[in-house]
């Protein structure tokens, strides 16, 4: 073919052209995609709460009279603090400070457990005031939403403890910290959801 001679002339393209995504880490990308998807899970639950909100507030018990804002503020504070310890853990692994990284991981898991305990106390207090799954719109919308978030926290705590165990074998260091990083992404996302729930459900 005559055309192919022309083509040969333009063979001088780079030997290893980019595909556009070389710098991305595969597992981190997967985690971000999953978290994007997770947004819609929580959006569906928050939407369920909000379309019922006018009716929820027209009756008793309703959120403004039942939910203790100061107690929940402490829970929000605990989760924010756990985000800080999480990011400090990652930073420690990145500096090859493995013992410190493990300690921060354990602190994060402990704070997560405190949050879960707080949530358990809150749920049982609500039950005493008659707010249960079958007590009406407020109970069902609120408990399913915060329960779903609590399940996320629970999975996160288990994951953090698994990372802590792994780190004990020296698996994480400044060359390989992606396992801690993606569990951290998940953990921060759980915190992020609580920022939304705290504002949208408890305060507004």
């Amino acid at each position, binding site marked *: 073919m005559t055309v192919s001679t022309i083509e040969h002339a333009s063979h001088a393209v780079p030997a290893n052209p980019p595909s556009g995504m070389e710098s991305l880490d595969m597992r981190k990308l997967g985690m971000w995609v999953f978290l994007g998807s997770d947004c819609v899970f929580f959006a569906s639950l928050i939407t369920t709460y909000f379309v019922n909100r006018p009716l929820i507030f027209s009756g008793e018990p309703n959120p403004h009279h039942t939910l203790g*804002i100061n107690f929940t503020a402490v829970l929000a504070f605990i989760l924010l603090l756990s985000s800080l310890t999480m990011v400090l853990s990652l930073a420690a692994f990145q500096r090859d400070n493995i013992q410190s990284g493990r300690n921060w991981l354990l602190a994060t898991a402990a704070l997560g457990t405190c949050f879960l305990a707080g949530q358990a106390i809150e749920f049982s207090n609500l039950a005493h005031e008659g707010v249960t799954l079958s007590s009406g719109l407020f109970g069902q919308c609120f408990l399913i939403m915060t329960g779903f978030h609590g399940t996320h926290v629970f999975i996160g705590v288990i994951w953090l403890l698994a990372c802590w165990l792994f780190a004990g074998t020296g698996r994480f260091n400044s060359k390989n910290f992606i396992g801690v990083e993606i569990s951290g992404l998940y953990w921060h996302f759980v915190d992020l959801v609580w920022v939304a729930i*705290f504002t*949208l459900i408890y305060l507004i």
Partner: protein
Amino acid sequence: MTATHTSPGHQSGTHDAHDAHAHPTTATYIQIFVVLFIVTAAEVVAAQILPSIGMTSLVAPSLLIMALVKGALIILYYMHLKSDSGVYAAPMVFGLVLATGMLLTMIGLWIIAPRVPCTPELGKACVVEK
């Protein structure tokens, strides 16, 4: 498939110098936390003070703005999106846009056609035994 394609050679995890440069320091993390803490406290105060001084209409907007600030700080600094590739951000941004769109549209739909509480006076359809 050769090693160049899938090896961790380009993964962020191996670029010590890059990460040390791009990721914030411990001091930054603590500063962010202090800001998050103060904004949360401000939220709690605003939610209780504003209605009592007659500014009920300001509650929702001010709380939403503060929540957005908190969320943005967490995503940008704790989740490192400020220094990471925008490709990581894309699914999250799309998810958040969809989530917001879903929430606002449905709230709007229920405002256009509000729901009447189901009371026995409305007819037999409302008193199905559970």
